[in-house]
């Protein structure tokens, strides 16, 4: 149940896949934007646009509002640190994570929660009504996503009889996969819907808009600039990558693949997930805010059906 990096069964594969995820994550929103542009008949920015943006922002200075305190400055660091630490618990290579222990699923979800808490505090620290609005909406929708995420986790816990992400999403899952395939597919669909909400994509939020009263995540980080803003953009892309990896782990068996093949599949999966998000974004409009809880509840219901199939 408990593993050390030292006696890890497949250290090169796990490390390599983690590196691919950490480096390749900014590609996911880029591919999504590119797909959206192609499907709507525009040229659009290249898929690697986010890398260029990050490089530019990291070289810049910073502007801090005089209203803000250390809470505002802690927020960007916290989101990036917590998201990277969540990656360490994730079986990125489809086999096993670098670190796994009893109940690390809780640590995974609650690390992301800590990042969100500090980001919301950073937004409220500016004293701006815009950022207050974003913070309020962020906690509202995140509160509804969280139960859905845990429905998926407990269902996989029942399917695999394991209590760590490595057990639920890694090699263990594929020994049982054919027996529980219908529910795992439902759970993957549920995770995809929750990903759209958690990572602020259409139809919950529109990452392409600026300065509109309908936005959520973007409006929370209006005052961050320079390297701080780069960290936030990166953390957001990485979170999308994390959820994409979770969906990939549920649908594509990679446990038996060689390290390079597993990493290549991961890249293909990230690109496919970005493309899927892009397709959703170009075929659907943003929902009205009061409709968003229904959308998230729908996603949670998919997971609940999967859970009920396993409980019967």
């Amino acid at each position, binding site marked *: 149940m408990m593993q050390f990096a030292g006696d890890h069964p497949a250290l090169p594969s796990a490390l390599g896949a983690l590196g691919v995820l950490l480096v390749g994550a900014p590609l996911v929103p880029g591919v999504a934007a590119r797909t959206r542009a192609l499907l709507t008949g525009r040229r659009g920015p290249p898929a690697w646009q986010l890398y260029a943006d990050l490089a530019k922002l990291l070289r810049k200075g910073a502007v801090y509002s005089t209203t803000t305190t250390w809470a505002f400055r802690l927020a960007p660091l916290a989101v990036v640190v917590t998201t990277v630490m969540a990656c360490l618990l994730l079986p990125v290579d489809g086999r096993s994570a670098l670190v796994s222990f009893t109940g690390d699923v809780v640590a995974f979800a609650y690390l992301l929660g800590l990042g969100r808490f500090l980001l919301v505090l950073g937004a409220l620290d500016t004293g701006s009504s815009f950022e207050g609005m974003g913070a*309020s909406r962020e906690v509202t929708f995140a509160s509804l996503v969280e139960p859905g995420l845990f429905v998926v986790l407990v269902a996989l816990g029942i399917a695999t009889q394991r209590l760590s992400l490595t057990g639920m999403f890694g090699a263990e899952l594929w020994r049982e996969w054919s027996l529980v395939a219908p529910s795992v597919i439902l759970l993957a669909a549920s995770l995809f819907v929750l990903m759209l909400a958690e990572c602020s994509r259409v139809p919950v939020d529109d990452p392409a808009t600026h300065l509109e009263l309908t936005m959520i995540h973007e409006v929370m980080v209006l005052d961050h600039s320079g390297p701080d803003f780069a960290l936030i953009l990166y953390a957001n892309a990485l979170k999308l990558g994390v959820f994409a990896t979770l969906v990939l782990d549920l649908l594509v068996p990679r446990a038996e693949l060689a390290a390079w093949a597993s990493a290549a599949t991961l890249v293909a999966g990230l690109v496919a997930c970005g493309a899927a998000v892009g397709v959703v974004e170009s075929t659907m409009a943003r929902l009205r805010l009061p409709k968003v809880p229904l959308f998230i509840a729908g996603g949670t219901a998919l997971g609940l059906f999967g859970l009920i199939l396993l409980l019967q």
Partner: protein
Amino acid sequence: MRLFFAGVALVLVGAVAACVMRRRAVVDAVYGVLVVAGCLVSGAAAVVALASGSSASVTVPSAVPGGDWVFALDPLAAVFVAAVSFVGAACVAFGTPYLAHERAHRPVWFAHATFAVLIAALMLVVTAQAVVPFLIAWELMAIGSYLLIVHEDEHPDVRRSGLIYIIATHTGTLALFAMFAAWGAQASDWSFAALAAAAPGLPHGGSLILALAVLGFGFKAGFVPLHFWLPPAHSAAPTHVSALMSGVVIKMGIYGILRVVSLLGGSPPLWWGWTMLAIGVVSGVLGVLWALAQHDIKRLLAYHSVENIGIIGIGIGVGALGAAYGHPGIAVLGYAGALLHTINHALFKSLLFLGAGAVYQATGTRDMEALGGLAKRLPYTWLAFFIGATAIIGVPPLNGFVSEWLVYVGLFRSAQTPDALRLAALGVPALALIGALALACFAKVSGIVFLGNARSHHAEGVHEVSRSLLAPMFALAGACVLLGVAPGPGVVAVVEVAARITRQAPAATGEAMAVVRDSAWISAVALVLMALLAGLWVVRRAALRRRVVRAVETWACGYPLGTARMQYTASSFAAPLLSTFGRMSGVVEHRAADAFHTEPVDLVLDRSAIPAWHWVRRAALRLRPIQQGRLYVYLIYVMVALVALLAYLGLEGRQ
């Protein structure tokens, strides 16, 4: 045991000192030192008892009916004594300077003496091992709390809160009398040992006892719908009293339930386990939802206690169900999670209440809508409050995470069993919802009170509170960090106590030993998290040193005329969530062209209990014509009653 009683005696000497010296200013120092020292001595005794796993006991022969008075410091009691003494010491250290400025116009000595007696009563409640001393200590605790709640009795709403409290607590005590009467009738005497010996003979596995225990102790713990006394009492009492009440007094309800379960052998009937799980989920979700609706910072914290009691209830439910379905490991996980969350909640909730008290002392208001921007004016209070808020939402690297992790592992393990216990899987998303709503709520209270700009003159021109108020807050905050970074000893201790409740050897419970082992990973996560944050902070500072860093106004999308009134308020921040939950969230909205405001209503007290009471009173008015106030009418009643009785006797005699 001697050490423990020496501590209790020191606390009581402190109470006497407060009464004797009364108005002299030196009393504060003497009283404070005596009570804090007493708490620390008792706490040390409890820690020794926990570490050695032994249980000493003392029997005092008594001529009063009900048998000898037995006191024992067994591991279950020791967990609670440790919490009472640490939180009690912090609250005394905070309360003494906090009340100092009231000395001119109020009998402060009385509040101090009552507070010390309350602490001593709490320690006796958890160590009493016989019915009579238990109930005496229980009542001493209830009445002590009442006297402290009505400390500012010139305000009518304080008197009303006190009245609601005393009605609630005595209804609970009534249930406890019924419980002990039903149980004691089967036992040889009134000691807990005799009650435990009588447990196997109880009808239906002690169902009646357990139902009365949930009712009696549930009033104290504040399970929904028995929680209604809690928010008014906590907002009426002086802050250090609210801190002690929310931190440890309501935990006596949890202690009582665990003690009864332990005396009954740790394996209650199935229906009881499912009921506790349901009560826990309902209390957790509704408690945090109603907390979100509050704008009085102390009422908000009080509703959060309902939420955390709910989480503890989920733990107890998992423990009871695990035992009932024959999974000792799950039983230990559930009870251990409940116990650890009890300790953790005692630490961070009292910390948050003391923080709210510091805010109140600095600004003179508890209304969040009037505050804002205090992070700059009260930087240390903000730091302590921030640690408490991060701990209560249960995220790494602080202590709240450890106990929620235990409860989660218990729920996941329940879900993985092959029997009907797997339906407990539905508790997992419920606990996740509770956690996420708590995050929203503490983002609201921290953000609205401490961040942004001042919303009124109350929050302007205020100064940091004195060091004597900050020190207890940082002691509690330090404990929260310590238990989060090094949870190992705490987890080991609660697992052993939980194993004792279920009468298992800890090593025999594989699932529970797994969490003991893997708690090392929790510390690793906490340490790496803090190290990475600190490292990245340093890197960023070094990187920005050679670049242009400007300090300007908040951008606000280029709108230049922003005022503090345009900020999001406590009402507006919570509005989207509350409207998602509709009527259940218990708010009344007021909308105007230039303002949005919500008012919280307690669905149990304001919408159910008081209307029901009015209905009873109206029904009773119908009976009023019976009361004529004339002697001959009453003589006729007596006559009629006598004839009726004689007729009854005569009819019965004929059969």
